[in-house]
């Protein structure tokens, strides 16, 4: 695996386009994590609401953390590359919100230190054709105490369930919002984030009252 020196040198010349430069007044940033199974629409949702074209950050995972991949020809590969897409929304002159779309497998979360720990909360994207892939994610977020809402992506051939039925199937408490969404639609994606923020507000209110 030879690195291409000139390509890497070219990357060092890159930077934000002039319209993507944050104002000098940007002093604080918060993040929300969009988590879900393979192909569920994470990147699409991030792209729908982001003010910048979604960017990608990659981290390399060593063999120890990965199942042995014996696909012919890659036997010599000792590491796996895991990508995370993210976008940005300027909330006001000072505050910036970052959205990270991350794979559902918990072993990937450790590649980015503090990905969830410092997050306001998470959006779990769910595809009703493959509900079972979400079970693990939901359990892990509950364990970690990360507040989350569930957004159900409306793929055309996906079965539609009443919310109560979904709640039962996902074993979610009454308080956790479940909302339909079309990740391709800006307003719909924005509403999902809004639902998360309103939910965080109720949590804060409950906390203050207790």
């Amino acid at each position, binding site marked *: 695996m030879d*690195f291409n020196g000139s390509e890497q040198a070219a990357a060092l*010349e890159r930077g934000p386009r002039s319209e993507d430069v944050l104002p000098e007044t940007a002093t*604080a940033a918060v*993040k929300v994590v969009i988590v879900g199974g393979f192909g569920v629409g994470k990147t699409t949702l991030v792209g729908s609401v982001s003010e910048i074209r979604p960017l990608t950050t*990659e981290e390399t995972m060593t063999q120890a953390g990965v199942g042995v991949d014996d696909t012919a020809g890659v036997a010599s590969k000792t590491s796996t590359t895991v990508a995370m897409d993210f976008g940005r929304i300027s*909330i006001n002159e000072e505050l910036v919100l970052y959205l990270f779309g991350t794979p559902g497998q918990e072993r990937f979360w450790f590649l980015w230190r503090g990905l969830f720990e410092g997050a306001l909360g998470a959006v779990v994207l769910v595809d009703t054709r493959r509900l079972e892939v979400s079970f693990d994610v939901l359990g892990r977020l509950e364990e970690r105490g990360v507040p989350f809402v569930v957004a159900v992506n409306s793929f055309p051939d996906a079965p539609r369930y009443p919310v109560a039925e979904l709640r039962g199937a996902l074993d979610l408490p009454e308080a956790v919002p479940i909302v339909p969404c079309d990740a391709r639609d800006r307003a719909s994606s924005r509403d999902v984030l809004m639902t998360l923020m309103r939910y965080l507000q109720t949590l804060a209110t409950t906390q203050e009252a207790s």
Partner: protein
Amino acid sequence: MSDWEETSPERLYVITGGRSGASAPAELDLVTLIVARSGPKPGMQPEHTAIVRICQAPLSVAEISAYLRLPVSVVTVLLGDLLDQDRVFARAPVPPARLPDRALIEAVIDGLQRL
């Protein structure tokens, strides 16, 4: 949409001088905003120069990683050097201990409403 060139582990090892992410400052989060204190100086390592160049305006650690196509774990080591040398400063993310902070959430809601 992975159009990153494979940067070999050997290459990354050279960039950080063999240091791992463990030697990076713990306070650096993906969304810590980094701002350069001045322009790049001659004689700096190319990766340091690149960071100082793109951080003339505030930029998150994640964005630095994406533009320069270097893993966050490598970027944080490089930022550790630049912080030590007083070439950049870090605007810490809103600390999670304060969350959920009602005023902060309200600000986010206002911002989203304008989207």
